């Protein structure tokens, strides 16, 4: 049942953030709050699914020499759609994600997936891959964001979790905190892997 396998592998086994280590920029830049992280995750997932489907459809008619430009155009189109739609219907989120929406284009995951997967697989599997990878991406973004928002702001999804008296550790929502959080998460994953 390869469809199902393609669907689930992105979540843990080939998690784009922790295992493949691509798409670092949005992972770190948009995880200051869980809300942003989920927004980013969904946007990226949408693009991933659409572009994976599209690319596996057109893979046979694109000559090798212009393969990358063509894929890039396809992906950029979907990204722009997301960008505009978000600006029109979710303006606040759009504002806080800022530059990183257009950057989904280059976001290595998507190109990585297009090159590595959709280019070689059929539509159904590509779609499954897109969904899986997107979910995996969203999930890891949320995990990182949860830690950062909790430590750096005392809240989760804007709900106050830690008591008011907690003096938030601001570094968690600053740039260095993003690196540290992800670094330690990765170390934890390595440790778990070693244990097995």
């Amino acid at each position: 049942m390869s469809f199902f396998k393609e669907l689930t592998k992105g979540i843990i086994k080939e998690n784009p953030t922790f295992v493949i280590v691509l798409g670092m920029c949005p992972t770190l830049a948009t995880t200051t709050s869980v809300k942003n992280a989920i927004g980013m995750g969904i946007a990226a997932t949408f693009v991933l699914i659409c572009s994976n489907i599209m690319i596996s459809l057109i893979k046979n008619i694109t000559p090798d020499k212009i393969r990358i430009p063509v894929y890039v155009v396809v992906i950029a189109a979907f990204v722009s759609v997301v960008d505009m739609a978000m600006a029109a219907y979710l303006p606040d989120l759009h504002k806080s994600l800022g530059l990183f929406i257009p950057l989904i284009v280059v976001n290595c995951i998507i190109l990585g997936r297009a090159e590595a997967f959709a280019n070689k697989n059929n539509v159904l599997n590509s779609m499954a891959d897109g969904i899986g990878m997107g979910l995996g991406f969203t999930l890891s973004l949320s995990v990182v964001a949860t830690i950062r928002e909790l430590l750096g702001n005392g809240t989760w999804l804007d709900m106050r979790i830690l008591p008011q008296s907690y003096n938030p550790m601001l570094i968690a929502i600053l740039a260095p905190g993003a690196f540290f959080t992800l670094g330690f998460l990765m170390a934890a994953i390595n440790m778990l892997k070693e244990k097995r």
Partner: protein
Amino acid sequence: MIVTTILAASIGSQVLIPVIILGIMGLVFGIILAIAAKFFSVQTDPRVEEITAILPGANCGGCGKAGCSGYADAVVHDGAPVNLCAPGGAEVAAHIARIMGTEAGSMQKKAAVFHCSSGGYKNTNWKYTYDGIESCKSAASIAGGPNACFWGCIGYNDCLKACMFGAISLDENGMRVVDWDKCTACGACVKACPRKLIELVPQNCAVHIKCSSLAKGPDAKAVCGTGNPCIGCGICARKCPVQAITVSNNLARIDYDKCINCGLCAKACPTKAILDLLAGSRKKAEIDPEACIGCAICVKACPVEAISGELKQAHSIDKEKCVGCGICIEKCPKKAIRMQD
């Protein structure tokens, strides 16, 4: 279809101009890339990439080249042999051969064995208290090495550290052993061991001398510690039905080309210096009397004279004598012999 609908729906500058602009950009870039592809095309040998792709990518250096891609390059451009990649084994060799259009050549799967059983550090007698860096190579280079046996394992695990496939571990005596399933015969351990205790042998060889000491018997015994030293008594050589063992300089050595894995030497060795991997699991040959035509080929072939029988009559095998080497099976023209537990 969609295009036409959209176009039809709103033909106006709102759609037309952007479409034209981007269209032209696409056209221009497409043509430029196409021209560039023609004009700047470089003949690279695609085979290098193909070979790199099928190599295991461990970059272990076993082939003697700078990493896997280095080897791929060497195969294509310098005509390096296709069967140098030990980790990849015969499969990869065959694959490369197919790409290169040559024959894979024989690639007997090999693995590492240790010719020492002492266990090294703490399990042998030491001449002195060694106070230096814990590496066999370093320790061996001062004062002849710390262990009393000049030939034996020092035990700082240089071999174990060198093995990137995790094939080496310690047995209950503290001696290093190789997991043949994991061993890829890359030879890194062989290079690492300053005592030259490790040898790559074909994986179908089951009997090994577990000692490298050139000392005279009593001396070897005195220094060995928990191991089983070879004392050079020569009993094994005399027991060997195929003369695969020679003893020189107080040490027995097995010629793996001759050895038939019968294990007789191991049974005979007074110091248990010979390891028999098949001990206890060895099968015996049995002749199917129906199929046997009594050609006596097997009688001649059997190294231990376990087969007897009249010409043209079904032969029989003396189970006591049979060592399960399987030579008769190979030789029997009628495939009348089988192995039985």
